[in-house]
């Protein structure tokens, strides 16, 4: 992947943030990180990224809330958003899809599958 791809990862777990940073940086991606949906929203108000990868279970504003807020704004209406979650129920996936998510990745993530998904959703 080229150097100019910039991704925001949103996850309240420092361990998961470290795994994501390591894995995406190895792919040549520039990685920005937020600890929950609220922090992600305020950061995105004044920054641009090619893709948002978000967890679901987070304090303050969870992944569903973050997707809904982003889709409500014209600036983020088309931005690819991938969910990365331990959850895998059809009901949760449908909720994310209805909120406007681009796709769903089940934890624990696989670095190669993640890299392929990133390439597919960023045009």
């Amino acid at each position, binding site marked *: 992947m080229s150097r100019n791809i910039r991704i925001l990862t949103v996850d*309240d*777990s*420092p*361990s*998961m943030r*470290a*795994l994501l940073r390591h894995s995406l940086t190895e792919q040549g991606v520039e990685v920005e990180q937020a600890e929950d949906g609220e922090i992600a929203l305020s950061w995105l108000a004044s920054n641009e990224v090619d893709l948002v990868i978000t967890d679901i*279970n987070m*304090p303050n504003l969870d992944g569903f809330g973050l997707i809904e807020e982003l889709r409500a704004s014209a600036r983020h209406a088309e931005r690819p958003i991938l969910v990365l979650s*331990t*959850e*895998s*129920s059809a009901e949760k*996936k449908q909720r*994310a*899809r209805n909120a406007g*998510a*681009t*796709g*769903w*990745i*089940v*934890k*624990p*993530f*696989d*670095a190669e*599958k*993640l890299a*392929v*998904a990133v390439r*597919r*959703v960023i045009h």
Partner: protein
Amino acid sequence: MTAPFSRPMEIGSPRRKVTVMQGDACASADPAVEYTTILGSCVATALYDPVAKIGGLNHFLLAEPAGSRNETVVDEHFGVYLMELLINEMLALGAKKSRLKARLYGGANMHVHLKRIGSDNAAFARAFLAREGIALVHEDLEGQNARRINFKPASGQVRCTTTVAAAAPPVAPVIQAKSREERGDVELF
């Protein structure tokens, strides 16, 4: 990918022993529930929220022997996943991450030729808790003995007894191996 391992709460039911297998994570606020598991090189994390009176237990084996006798490979992704699964199970019942207290058990180095496996599992668990800011209030790790854990999730009470090595489960990370091909599956909408 196997679904999360939540179990229904049965308030007022008779005492119920639940065996927590390797690769499993469960949580409960039911005073009748008692979790039990036997650990060799595996590590179990017992988490407890003393305010909400909710407890949870996981059981994992991350390290496996690599090529040479003194090397091991630690599958950190699977470890972080099983810890997150445990924490999420507890949050879903009403626990708060900032209130969680952790106890760690297991991580025995039971065979000379596999000597680092238990210690590697223990090191991962300690490092994870430190990174996440979860207080480690007690640990009974490493050494050479297998352990039997009995944990009452609603009271947070843990009993750890040493047991014969033969009682401990085999050291292969069974569920981890099974899930490796399925892990990280991507579904684009």
